[in-house]
């Protein structure tokens, strides 16, 4: 179960990341402009990535624990 949740989460994030990073020049998502604007942009994007990965980790962890408690105690 937890692997399915992790896989679906990863697919969603990969899809969003792919869409954001492979945006063309006229796209509304301006990755190259953001990175050119300031070195801080890369830090902000990396930090957001850390939040996304950590959130998925805790969502999967807590869901599995709650589900396990539900199975054990009903």
């Amino acid at each position, binding site marked *: 179960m937890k692997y399915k949740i992790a896989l679906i989460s990863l697919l969603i994030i990969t899809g969003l990341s792919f869409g954001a990073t492979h945006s063309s020049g006229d796209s509304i998502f301006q990755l190259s402009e*953001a990175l050119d604007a300031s070195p801080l942009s890369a830090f902000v994007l990396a930090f957001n990535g850390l939040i996304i990965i950590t959130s998925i980790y805790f969502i999967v962890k807590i869901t599995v624990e709650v589900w396990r408690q539900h199975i054990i105690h009903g």
Partner: protein
Amino acid sequence: MADLTPLLDPHVSLHIIHIIGVVIAVGAVIITDVVNGFLHLRPGFAEWDAKIAPLFSLMVWTGFLILAVSGTLLFLMHPYLIHDTLFHAKMLFVAAVFFNGVLLNTWVTPKFEELSEEWDERTERVKAFEVVAGVAAVVSVIGWMSIIVLGYLIANT
């Protein structure tokens, strides 16, 4: 017939999703603090609180995930935000709330589950834990409220 075409604009729809993330996360933070405040008055509810606390944590992290994904896309739409001092301040509060959340989930919540059975007895361990958990709760509320205020100012100035 209401005009729903603005929803097709990614600027609008992503802002709405971002606000939904705030509502889920901040709603869970506030309800957690209210329940924990109630627990101080009625220690008998500790075991019940320990059972439902993971659900509130789940809501906070779900809100965080929505905020981080929509926030990244919004940032890529408005890269000039990186020069805004208010944005810097907002990201500092986001960092504070994020690391505070990690602390809450890795140390505070497991410790609370461990102490819930002796909560009624008001042991020294329980009192010391209440101080740490109280500080984390204050950091959380002040951080989230500051993020809301700064987010509003960034969007409207």
